[in-house]
């Protein structure tokens, strides 16, 4: 046994050792930390420079990262001034249909526009095959899906009209009001397959209140920047020029920076414009739309809108369905809201046509029809590829999904390469997973 004096000596020596080591550790840290930072940034640049050239990178942390098992790590890139310029994802992606097919990717996504800045693969052979994908996707906005080969799209995206539009006047309105009790609507006229007239406005649930454009001009409705009516005009004019809502370059916060004088959120306009375009493709005119919404109101409330006095002078149903969310909300199997139905979808449901989007179920294997031959080219087939089906009324784009994302959110479509389908599919999955992460991490509104 140790004597008391021996214990004292031992304790003194141990304490001295601890103090000495603490001094060494702290001074060592101060001595080497600059070098460690430089080394770390050098390593990051070496790893991520090809997908997102940035001056410095910092890793992102947070609980949401654990909700995405395919993502190994995420970094935010900064320029020389310390302004964020994008995100880099390091991920191991596997095919939904074949868990054994995996690939390690590094992908870059632009900070402002969520456009693809680069992609690389750990496997050098696959990386060479991905060059086609990279050249196709670079500069495109996420999320991404494959386009079917028999649909035609102009490669030069300068103001080419959206394909498949039927001439006529089309209309879409929100089924719920905003905080000022305004219900947004978009009216669109198509002639010769092009958008020739667009009007974005909102009527009020209180019929004595003037429409939003008039209210903004009279000073009753104020937003930052230009009057709302002017901004609405500018965005409508831009759509006439660009011909496609996706080209408005809406950012994650719902705004756009490519149209002068537009500072308000254009999320609602983009959504309603897309709905009008889908209606046009399906030949679902304004008259059909208004009679459908009248029917939805009648079936939901048990009385007609005219009896309840909710039809305004312009003939629109000035009513908010927010107290009956089951009418317009798409729920997944867990009961969580997954998105919103359009009026056309709700009507189809009332007609007894169970659209796939309304009841999310596993996509059946492609049937042996001439039309499915193209889908059989690839090992996966079916909706998980994100193949866009035809534009018939019952074959809505929304009826499919890719990587658990509704097709209505998909912004970019590409042709699947015939020689490296698997790599391309995995790459698309990587970008869509990155999109889902950013959506959750940054609380993006869709």
């Amino acid at each position, binding site marked *: *046994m*140790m*004597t008391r004096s*021996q214990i004292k000596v*031992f304790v003194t*020596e*141990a304490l001295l*050792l*601890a103090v*000495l*080591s*603490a001094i*060494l*550790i*702290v001074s*060592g*840290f101060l*001595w*080497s*930390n600059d*070098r*460690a930072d430089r*080394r*770390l940034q*050098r*390593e990051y640049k070496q790893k991520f420079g090809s997908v997102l050239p940035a001056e410095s990178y910092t890793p992102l*942390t947070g*609980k949401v*990262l*654990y909700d995405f098992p395919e*993502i*190994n*790590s995420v970094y935010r890139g900064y320029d020389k001034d310390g302004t964020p310029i994008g995100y880099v994802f390091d991920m*191991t992606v596997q095919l939904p249909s074949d868990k054994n097919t995996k690939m390690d990717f590094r992908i870059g996504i632009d900070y402002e526009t969520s456009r693809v800045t680069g992609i690389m693969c750990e496997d050098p052979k696959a990386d060479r095959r991905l060059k086609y994908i990279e050249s196709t996707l670079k500069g495109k906005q996420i999320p991404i899906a494959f386009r079917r080969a028999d649909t035609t799209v102009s490669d030069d995206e300068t103001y080419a009209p959206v394909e498949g539009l039927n001439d006529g006047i089309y209309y879409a309105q929100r089924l719920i009001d905003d905080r000022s009790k305004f219900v947004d609507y978009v009216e669109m006229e198509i002639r010769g397959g092009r958008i020739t007239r667009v009007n974005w406005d909102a009527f009020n649930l209180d019929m004595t209140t003037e429409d939003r454009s008039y209210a903004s001009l009279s000073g009753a409705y104020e937003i930052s920047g230009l009057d709302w009516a002017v901004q609405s005009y500018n965005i409508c004019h831009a759509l006439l020029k660009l011909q496609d809502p996706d080209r408005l370059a809406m950012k994650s916060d719902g705004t756009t920076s490519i149209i002068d004088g537009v500072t308000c959120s254009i999320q609602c306009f983009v959504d309603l414009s897309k709905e009008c375009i889908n209606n046009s493709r399906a030949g679902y005119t304004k008259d059909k739309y208004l009679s459908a919404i009248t029917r939805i109101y009648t079936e939901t409330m048990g009385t007609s809108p005219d009896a309840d006095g909710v039809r305004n002078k312009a003939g629109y149903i000035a009513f908010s369905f927010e107290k009956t969310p089951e009418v317009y909300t798409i729920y997944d199997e867990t009961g969580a809201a997954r998105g919103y139905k359009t009026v056309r979808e709700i009507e189809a449901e009332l007609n007894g046509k169970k659209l796939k989007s309304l009841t999310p179920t596993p996509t059946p294997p492609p049937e042996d029809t001439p039309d499915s031959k193209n889908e059989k080219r690839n090992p996966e087939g079916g909706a998980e590829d994100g193949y866009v089906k035809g534009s018939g009324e019952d074959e809505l784009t929304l009826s499919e999904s890719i990587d658990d994302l509704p097709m209505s959110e998909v912004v970019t479509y590409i042709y699947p390469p015939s020689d490296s389908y698997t790599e391309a599919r995995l790459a698309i999955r990587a970008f869509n997973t990155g999109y889902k992460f950013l959506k959750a991490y940054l609380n993006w509104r869709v």
Partner: protein
Amino acid sequence: MSRKEKKTLAPFIHTEKNAPYIYLTLIAAMVPCAIYGAFYYGLRAIVLILFCMVTFTLSDIIFTKIAGRGGRGEYFDLSSAASGLMLALVLPPDTSLIAALAAVLFGSIVTKQIFGGPGSNLVNPAAAGRLFVSLVMPSSLLGYAEGGTEGWFMLRTLIFGSKGGEFHDYTNCSFPELITGNFPGMIGAACATCVLLGGFFLVMRGSIRTYAPIAYLVTLTVFFPLSNVLERGKGFGYEGYVAFMLASGVVFVAVFMLGDLTTMPSRFSAGFFAGMVCAILTLVLRAFLRPDTALFAPVLSVNFMSFVLDFLMKTLSRRNLRSREVDVR
């Protein structure tokens, strides 16, 4: 002897260097490494260290009671706490508590209790526990995070573990980073300065056998070029030698595992031979296995052969003696 008679240590052992003293010295020697881990990796490292020490001790006590073995105060010798601390120091900082618990239970029950408790274990419990987890839960031991103040208060990894990662390439690190441990490494084994400080303390207190560690480090130095050829296909040279010696954890293994009084040979020649074998195995396995597996598997190998080596060396040293008396040299 009546059943009520008190069991005590044999009265003829009169030394200040009893088991509690040796383990207390070992713990004190590992304190610099623990301080390093706490400073660089923050709360999660502190929690992991305390968790391993407490669970290792509890596991030992509970298993002893279940087995109906053990006398009162058996685990006040601090061997359990020392093993728990050593195990925590060789874990990556972003290890989950589940992975740490698996390592603790394997080290405590399988390598220590099943063989008879403290002082009877054939292999180092910390090395065995660490190796066990790296073999059965390999993805849980990839949390080699950068140190620093940014993640000091992060505790999430204790539950979720690491998102996966990779072993760091230490050859990119500058000498100041390597000598101070300012790179992604194990909680306490990355800072060679702290380990050597602890080793110095052990030598000063006489609680270490130095011949196996010295043989290990010398052999590593001599045969390092062989590793370069095997692992990287590079030429016969010392490229990356400093980074390997300072960053791979071999100094920690040398000081705290190969200097162990229980699991390493007690004779000079046997210990020296064991150190050499351990070093050669480490260099060869590096080319084929994960770095952490290549680091700890050789320790267990020489632990297993240590009693055979001791016996062999003793027999060799007595081969010219006719007497069957105990060799007291």
